[in-house]
């Protein structure tokens, strides 16, 4: 087993990985950028190395600096988390060249799946159904012809893409030109690769993905599905398992297809095979494979009872699975809500600032994976994910109720969040029925924030009655020499 692991990431996922290391008796090294020098993942690690400036290019995306940090601290392995360099084949190769272990799949597997165009071709070969479409087109004319053949709406997406970046839904021919241009630009900027592919857009589709886990000895299992259809801007915001859409037979078929997909690229490590499923025909299509830990891995952990991060580490260390497919089953239900610093009432624009209050819900069957605390700064340099709120329950109904109770206890002041929005989604009849497609938020869920209630106004006014001055900052965790609450002490009982 490794004795020291460098975690080439930040925020909640860095802490999640460090916890697994700590439990396994493995020392941890954090890396960080200027913007993150006071962040929790730096405080949690045994050692911390400053990489450079806040721009990802200068820090979390710098292969050389990260490998240097690992060498400098005598780490023997690197865990990439998700995002940043996690699906970068050159990084995996560079880690191996530096005689360090990359906690992930082989560089070849990453390469084979990283290219959405190439992977689609190899999946077709492996007999896994894929979405009708075309790869390798160049000119605007070719795209136009392809789109016509497929039939609108079509989806244009970056061959090197992921996370909804460089992706555009095109409803009609007149929008195709601008969509291709802007997707290319975004793709080039985010991935350094502007190749696009085009395919049929299924407007009512569900996004259902399967967790796979493979060791280095040829064993591959799947840990069932995650339903991730609640999305905005092509990014998931609520995930759950089991999927309300899948019957046991379809689940089994798709699980086998997922294992076949992973086998086709000689996969080991944790990975996710994404499918889209047409709810009317119940046909499923391979979308892509993410060759890394997934943001929403906790819901699988709760329903299957496994620790995916510990297994990633064990797999990378060469351990052989002591289990087989038949040893896994789903029990109960789990839901994850992603708590973003963003404004759902204003196009989900990211919100930045200092967290004046930050109180997470607690309690049985509630898990919060987070990297923030009161006083933390949310900057514009990185993804605005504040925390993942994950709950488990015996049934879907109990789990939804528990999530609603937990969301109502989550307090974040200082940045706008999507908490109210998430509550409204959970209350919606369509969600309760499990009848939500990937475009539901944009096309059917017409959410508008309400106005402040009398209670809210009273509370705001009471704060002012109690404070003779307007404090510039009122923070539960910061010592305030002139705390306005002191004048209220007569009311304490």
């Amino acid at each position: 087993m490794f004795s020291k692991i460098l975690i080439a990431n930040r925020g909640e996922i860095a802490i999640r990985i460090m916890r697994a290391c700590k439990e396994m008796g493995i020392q941890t090294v954090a890396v960080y950028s200027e913007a993150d020098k006071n962040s929790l993942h730096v405080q949690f690690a045994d050692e911390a190395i400053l990489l450079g400036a806040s721009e990802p290019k200068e820090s979390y995306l710098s292969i050389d600096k990260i490998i240097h940090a690992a060498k400098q601290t005598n780490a023997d392995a690197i865990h990439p988390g998700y995002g940043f360099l996690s699906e970068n084949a050159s990084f995996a190769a560079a880690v191996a060249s530096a005689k360090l272990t990359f906690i992930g799949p082989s560089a070849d597997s990453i390469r084979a799946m990283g290219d959405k165009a190439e992977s689609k071709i190899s999946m077709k070969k492996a007999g896994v159904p894929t979405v009708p479409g075309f790869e390798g087109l160049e000119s605007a004319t070719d795209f136009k012809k392809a789109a016509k053949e497929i039939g609108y709406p079509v989806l244009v997406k970056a061959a090197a893409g992921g996370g909804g970046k460089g992706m555009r839904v095109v409803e009609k021919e007149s929008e195709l030109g601008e969509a291709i241009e802007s997707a290319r630009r975004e793709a080039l900027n985010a991935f350094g690769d502007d190749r696009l592919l085009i395919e049929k857009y299924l407007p009512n589709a569900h996004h259902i993905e399967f967790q796979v886990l493979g060791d280095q000895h040829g064993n591959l299992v799947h840990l069932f599905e995650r339903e991730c259809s609640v999305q905005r801007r092509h990014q998931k915001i609520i995930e759950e398992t089991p999927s309300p859409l899948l019957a046991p037979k379809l689940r089994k078929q798709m699980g086998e297809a997922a294992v076949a997909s992973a086998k086709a690229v000689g996969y080991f490590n944790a990975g996710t095979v994404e499918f889209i499923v047409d709810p009317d025909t119940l046909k499923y299509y391979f979308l892509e494979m993410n060759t890394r830990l997934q943001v929403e891995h906790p819901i699988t952990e709760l329903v299957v009872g496994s620790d995916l991060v510990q297994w990633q580490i064990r797999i990378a260390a060469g351990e052989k699975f002591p289990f087989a497919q038949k040893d896994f089953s789903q029990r109960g239900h789990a839901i994850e809500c992603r708590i973003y610093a963003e404004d759902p009432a204003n196009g989900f624009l990211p919100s930045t600032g200092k967290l004046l209050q930050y109180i997470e819900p607690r309690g049985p069957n509630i898990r919060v994976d987070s990297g923030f605390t009161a006083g933390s700064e949310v900057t514009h340099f990185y993804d605005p994910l504040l925390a993942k709120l994950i709950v488990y329950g015996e049934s879907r109904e109990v789990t939804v109720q528990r999530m609603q109770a937990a969301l109502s206890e989550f307090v974040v002041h200082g940045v706008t969040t999507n908490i109210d929005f998430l509550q409204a989604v959970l209350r919606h009849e369509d969600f309760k029925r499990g009848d939500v497609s990937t475009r539901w938020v944009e096309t059917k869920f017409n959410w508008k924030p309400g106005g402040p209630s009398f209670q809210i106004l009273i509370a705001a006014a009471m704060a002012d009655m109690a404070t003779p001055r307007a404090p510039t900052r009122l923070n539960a965790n910061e010592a305030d020499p002139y705390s306005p609450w002191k004048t209220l002490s007569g009311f304490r009982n």
Partner: protein
Amino acid sequence: MKIAFDQSTIDLTPNGRNYKAVSDGKTVDVEVIRAENGKLDLLIDGKHITAYISSDGAKRWVTVNGQTFVLTKSSGTKRSGAGHDYASELAAPMPGQIRSVNVSEGEAVSKGQTLLVLEAMKMEIRIQAPRDGNVKELMVKVGQTVEREQILVKMEEQ
């Protein structure tokens, strides 16, 4: 004592250990049962509510029953904010870099048309016309880094 927040006004009068609160013709009795840094337990007409409150300048962040609102306290005179729908000036919603400018000064634009594209947090944010009108002045150019709330475009009616 009258306190104004955005569109609402509330009148709070001490009444023994309690307060009388009036807003929009409604009157309730308010008792503070517990006050901690950033947290208030109140009885409003005998009903217990817990409110989390943070102040940041004139801004009040308030959470009750899991619903969070940001209210801006008016101090007498009303300052026109950087509102989204009615402003004739369009400001950057967050710090970033101008990716493209799609219109020129004097051009007539229609509601929803993309005027320029801002890149922030690796996303492209389209700054769109809030209504039909003319581009009066372009305050930025491609490649320029802008701060949050910085004015990007001034518009005028047609």
